[in-house]
């Protein structure tokens, strides 16, 4: 928090009061998250003891997570799925977005329509059929299949971003490069793509949340328990941790897992927020 002396003079008493109110608001607002953190340090019998303050040295729950046979696999799966999806998505969407912005033929206008339509189809309508398709492609329960589905359903969003951004790159740059003998492909890889870096940043920063946090997709397409993602791992954790009985929700370890699964993405957000927030809103504000 910047409270250096020279800044203080600019702020009135009223704004200090507002700041104080905001502080209180944020504390209350984030309190539920704090409760989760607390739960992850509690022994099982105190989970529902609302005012019990645990000693933060009880690391049993976290140990249970880190030593569970499936946790590391699910972490790797989630990372792989995110990285591969983002990489392929960036490449394909930038290519498509660039070309759409620079082409006038009708076929490209039609393609643009296809991209927009893809945004509207709800995932649930296609669930069962994609499931069967996965079976016949022998790809069901493989992370690769989930990646393909993510790409198919989400590439349109990125294409729109790249399309809008490409339009802000002046044609003179391309004309100059063409005079120098640049073909279309070289133009894209050597000239345009580097200029699209901000758009790439936006695409990565905004879409990574969908892939990291997604629950429905793994629930349906990775259902055999051998290739969990972190979110599916949370859902199934009670059976993995389990006791001799049915469905025991061990809240302590589950809370610990929730924290562990959320930390990377929160850190990522904190590091890239400027990119995320400016990119997200640029399109909305300018219309």
């Amino acid at each position, binding site marked *: 928090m910047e409270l250096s002396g020279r800044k203080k003079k600019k702020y009135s008493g009223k704004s200090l009061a507002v700041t104080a109110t905001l502080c209180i608001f944020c504390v209350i607002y984030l309190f539920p998250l704090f*409760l989760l953190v607390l739960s992850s340090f509690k022994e099982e019998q105190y989970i529902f003891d*609302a005012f019990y303050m645990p000693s933060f040295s009880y690391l049993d729950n976290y140990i249970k997570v880190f030593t569970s046979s499936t946790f590391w696999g699910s972490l790797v799966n989630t990372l792989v799925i995110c990285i591969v999806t983002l990489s392929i998505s960036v490449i394909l969407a930038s290519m498509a977005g660039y070309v759409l912005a620079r082409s006038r033929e009708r076929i490209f206008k039609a393609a643009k329509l296809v991209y927009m339509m893809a945004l509207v189809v709800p995932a649930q309508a296609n669930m069962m059929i994609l499931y069967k398709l996965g079976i016949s492609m022998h790809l069901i329960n493989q992370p690769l299949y989930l990646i393909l589905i993510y790409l198919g359903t989400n590439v349109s969003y990125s294409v729109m971003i790249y399309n809008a951004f490409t339009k802000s790159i002046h044609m003179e740059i391309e004309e100059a490069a063409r005079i120098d003998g640049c073909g279309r492909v070289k133009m894209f890889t050597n000239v345009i793509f580097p200029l699209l870096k901000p758009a790439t940043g936006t695409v990565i920063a905004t879409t990574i949340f969908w892939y990291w946090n997604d629950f429905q997709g793994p629930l349906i397409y990775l259902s055999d328990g051998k290739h969990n993602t972190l979110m599916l791992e949370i859902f199934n954790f009670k059976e993995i941790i389990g006791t001799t009985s049915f469905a025991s929700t061990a809240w302590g370890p589950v809370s610990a897992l929730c924290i562990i699964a959320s930390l990377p993405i929160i850190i990522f*957000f904190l590091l890239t927020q400027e990119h995320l927030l400016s990119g997200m809103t640029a399109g909305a504000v300018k219309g």
Partner: protein
Amino acid sequence: MSSRRADYWKRILFILPSLLLIAIFVAYPFIQGVIYSFTDWDGINVTKNVGFENYINLFRDISFKKALSNTIFFTAFLVVIMNPLALGMATILNKKIIGKNIFRTLIYIPTTISLIVVSNIWTLILTFTGFLNKLLELVGWGSHAVDWLGSYDMTPMVIVLIIVWQGLGNSMVFYLAALQGVAPELHEAARIDGATHWKKFRYITLPLIMTTVTVVLFLQISSMLKIFDIPYLMTAGGPGDATMTITMLIYDQAFRFNTAGYATTTGVVLMIFIIFVSVLQTKLTGSKEVDY
């Protein structure tokens, strides 16, 4: 000229991979789904074509009607609660305040968390022996302690509030960016003319941020009409059918009732409904957009 033709085909190649992915994983399933919606597909066998029977049954289906009304309820209340809050927060954060970026970040954090983690967080609080009831007991309002996730009347609203909690940061950030684009001179001029806060907002700010409002509303509505994770994880549609949404119904129809053809029918109808509402909404708010 051959190099122009070559260039044309190169450009086609550029859009081909993504279009192919869409064709296989979005278009094909959808078209196949529409075909199945005219059959009695049970997930494994298709024995006969039933024409429009599934569609007719759907419109008579009490579960569908209730899921539809629940979904509309969720969406309407989300819009009505979320937007004033988000806009209000954005307005406050638009002023000169110490550490406003920190507040913006903090409020955004719940948006970055997965819905399954959100559901775990709130289940711990709202369960009958959870934090909220214990708090009520502490302040002497123990008699008001209810099963927050097991009440036919209150649980739907509880679900809406949880989703507001999660999504506030997202909408707020959009509004903040929009407000930053409104020139302060306009407000200054109006203030000199003696305009009240409300008048300033209604006649200056609101029209100028309308493009953003359109986008934000569109995103909120189109995603809320498909809401699945939170009610699925927290209440399983209950108690009774109080929190059953359309996408949850599709899931049950496809995977639990063995009526997969019927499920695709519901999916098609849902999509048409979403398109209809979105078009309506963007036209309505779009017409109010203004540029000074």
